């Protein structure tokens, strides 16, 4: 038997919906926003690929082969210096990419670990200090991120805390660990705020019932509440990771931007722009966009799979 298409009705083709003003206004608003983002990306790409400096940057970093050391030794001094400098730049960028990836990924995981209990307490807490915590959590969201870099510098360099931690082998200032600390400090606020919304939407009676059935309070939280918060957790992880990856102001203030040490992609981009090498800055921006899009796509797919799973659970 032929299967009828889902859209067909017993009377033939379904009546076409007339375009409404409501739908039109929504489409216009969304269209402007999406076009703006797409326009920015296209403009960056065109500017980098059409400008001589951008093309050189692109060609040198991806396509120019660096001769082996034996060959290099036989080359004139000028060419040797060129290839050495190119090799250094490649290593610097590779290091910056790797440093960005691992610091933001580690920071995202640490932030998530902090955001889960914080979001839960903000959602379910009924004690007096909960409003104060709520207000404090918003500070990293509303204030300029640079402030936190400067403030951390003051905390670890102008108080006794830095030397105390150094004596036990922990150093943050001008170290990659400091980058993670800055990212955790700021990204956690976004994660906690997002997870508060997730926990708000989960019926507290689920955990209450789990307790009457034999779970401890912690057991009920992990087996029931967190299990129901899965899609929210993935979404929060995306948000935290993206926020951590994009930070540069507080990273420069607290950790500096030393090549092969504390230089992450956003700080390199900022420094390139500050010395007028706009094409080089945009080139790094494009690299970051590519990375971010890849990671976000993976995480979004994971979220959709989680949402699909929930959808299947709700379908008869």
């Amino acid at each position, binding site marked *: 038997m032929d299967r009828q298409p889902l859209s067909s009705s017993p009377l033939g083709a379904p009546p076409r919906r007339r375009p409404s003003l409501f739908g039109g206004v929504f489409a216009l608003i969304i269209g402007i926003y999406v076009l703006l983002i797409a326009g920015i990306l296209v403009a960056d790409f065109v500017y980098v690929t059409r400008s001589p400096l951008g093309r050189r940057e692109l060609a040198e970093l991806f396509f120019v082969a660096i001769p082996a050391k034996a060959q290099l030794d036989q080359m004139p001094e000028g060419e040797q210096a060129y290839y050495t400098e190119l090799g250094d730049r490649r290593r610097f960028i590779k290091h910056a990419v790797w440093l960005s990836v691992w610091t933001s990924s580690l920071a995202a995981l640490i932030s998530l670990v902090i955001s889960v209990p914080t979001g839960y307490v903000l959602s379910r807490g009924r004690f007096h200090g909960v409003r104060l915590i709520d207000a404090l959590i918003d500070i990293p969201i509303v204030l300029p991120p640079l402030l936190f870099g400067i403030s951390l510098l003051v905390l670890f360099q102008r108080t006794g805390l830095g030397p105390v931690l150094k004596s036990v082998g922990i150093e943050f200032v001008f170290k990659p660990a400091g980058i993670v600390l800055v990212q955790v400090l700021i990204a956690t606020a976004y994660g906690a705020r997002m997870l508060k919304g997730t926990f708000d939407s989960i*019926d507290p*009676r*689920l955990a*209450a*019932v*789990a*307790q*009457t*059935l*034999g*779970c*401890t*309070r912690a*057991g009920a939280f992990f*087996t*029931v509440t967190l*299990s*129901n918060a*899965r899609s929210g957790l993935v979404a929060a992880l995306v948000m935290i990771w993206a926020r951590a990856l994009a930070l540069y102001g507080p990273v420069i203030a607290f950790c500096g931007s030393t090549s092969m040490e504390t230089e992450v992609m956003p700080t390199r981009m900022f420094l390139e722009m500050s010395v007028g090498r706009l094409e080089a800055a945009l080139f790094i921006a494009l690299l970051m966009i590519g990375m971010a899009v890849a990671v976000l796509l993976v995480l979004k797919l994971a979220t959709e799979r989680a949402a699909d*799973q*929930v959808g*299947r*659970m*709700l*379908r*008869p």
Partner: protein
Amino acid sequence: MLELQDLRAEAGEFRLGPINLTVPAGAYAVVLGPPGSGKSVLIETLCGLRPVAAGCIRLDGRDIAGLPPRSRGIGYVPQDYALFPTKRVRANVTFGLRARGLSRAEAHARVHPFIELLHLERLLDRWPGSLSGGEQQRVALARALATQPHLLLLDEPVSALDESARDTVCRELRRIQYELGITTLHISHNIEEAFSVADLAILMRGGRIVQTGSMDDLVRRPRTPFAARFLRAQNVFDGEANEHEVKVGQLMLRSGRPAAGRVSVMIRPEKIDVRSAAPAEGSACVVPVKVERRVDRGPYVHVDLAGPVPLVAYVSHQTAALLPDGLDAEVWAVIEPDDVCLLEGEDDLGERASGAVING
């Protein structure tokens, strides 16, 4: 057996108790009361989800007031069933046993009788979101019963169901409770629901027990005007008693029980006999009234009567057919002294009412 002694708890500004109550082993008790009367706070306190401020909760002789919810031996079915949405029916039902450390196979074997009892065989691989209200309720019940609790707490178990399903589900609940012999506390604000299941009814108001007894007791002999009104005794009046006579406004009633001073009286609407002709002299109080409104309620006819005090009577279709046609028809309301029930004046929220102990 569930015994509560001077039980007190707090929920924000709300104070529950002191509550004294005994529910015999294997009894089906229904806690009745309007919204805000403390029924749900009571159930949460019994479950251990709310701390006990004072007093004692004894379940089958064991004081459980200080125990965590998992150690109390109580099965809890919340109002909207709270099935775990990310677990299939099978995992929902075995959840309690798995949480207690049983293997998957052991847990499945142990829940099998409850799956059969509640006819869940065909639902085991379904997700909770795909079940109807009645199916969800059966799953929630199986999940609560699977751990073989000593007490089953049902928080408004049929309120989420449509009218037509409620009676069937109530009958089913009673059958399951009877087969398992489990002591059950069922929260409700619906009198019909209580009538269909309750061995024992507990009426609450303002965090305290107002009256306990069988449903028949509560309906026939409400202790306070609040109890009378909640149990839908339409004719509740304040009056002045002098021996067997009670003056309510311009109406002089005779009561079967002597009293003195200010009293509240209740006359159940089905006890008022409405006639088209005045009866012969007797002990009954005969009141000339006019028919103000008639409403056919199916099994009976609701008649509003205007007279010295406004009265409501429920009469049979046969009686209604004998009354003169039209509104403002002049008829007689006949009230026997034994049907004039004297209430305890003020609504009693004190220790005396909550101290009611029902045995057997």
